[in-house]
């Protein structure tokens, strides 16, 4: 059952990209990014209320911890831009490539306080196959 739920999470992601992309098609990227975050904030505040979670911010949290939301703007805007030109599936495959390469680099150099794990050269084979797949996907 949990495996099916995992598949559904993926499906929801694609539907979200489609919804957000359609919104940005109508309003432009900046306005839609604000709207998307606004709707999301209302949803998460309702979740906070329903689950009766307490919101408390401990003092002295390093400022950079708050930057995920800033990075999130980048994700939304970049995805919306690509959606308008490339649709849903191709940006997903390209995004996966970006995720894989960037995770390998953060692990390899132990960036952002991650444990250092050297790149396994065999992984370049996997990256190569992903690259070939993306190349084929980009044919019209």
């Amino acid at each position: 059952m949990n495996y099916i739920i995992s598949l559904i999470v993926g499906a929801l992601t694609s539907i979200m990209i489609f919804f957000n992309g359609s919104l940005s098609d109508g309003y432009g990227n900046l306005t839609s990014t604000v709207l998307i975050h606004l709707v999301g904030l209302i949803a998460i505040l309702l979740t906070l209320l329903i689950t009766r979670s307490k919101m408390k911010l401990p003092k002295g949290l390093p400022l950079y911890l708050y930057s995920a939301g800033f990075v999130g703007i980048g994700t939304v805007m970049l995805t919306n831009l690509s959606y308008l030109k490339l649709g849903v599936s191709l940006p997903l495959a390209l995004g996966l490539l970006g995720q894989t390469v960037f995770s390998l680099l953060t692990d390899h150099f132990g960036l952002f306080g991650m444990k250092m794990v050297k790149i396994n050269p065999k992984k370049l084979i996997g990256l190569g196959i992903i690259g070939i797949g993306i190349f084929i996907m980009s044919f019209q």
Partner: protein
Amino acid sequence: MLVIYIILSILAGVTVVLGRILNAKLAEKIGTIQATVINYVVGIFFSAIFLLILNRGLHFTSSQSSIPLWAYLGGILGVAIIMISNYTTPRVPAFYLTLLVFLGQLAVGILIDWLISKDFSLYKLIGSLFVVAGFTYNLLLDKKATK
């Protein structure tokens, strides 16, 4: 010109990883739901500032009245995805979780592209099989390394 959008898509993937790392660190300190609230507050604050500076405020024109209601629901889906992932992550082995989420994304992504362009692309289907194969191979290497 297409190259620019290819680079933008890859960068989107980079921001996903960066956001995930930062968010996980904040969630560790204050909880997942609480970290998500902060995320959205910070997100609105900065995107609104960008909007004010670059767009000089909100502009609504008549063409926007044709935007269907469902297009506004992406933000809710985003929160739903975070909450469901919160449930599945400790329950599904990382290998299957990552692979299944990506399979769901790609399958529905190809379906949406197909429905919108009204034109089924065999290239997208075949290419995505390669992408899944390469991704699976690397995940298998990870799985072997953790054993």
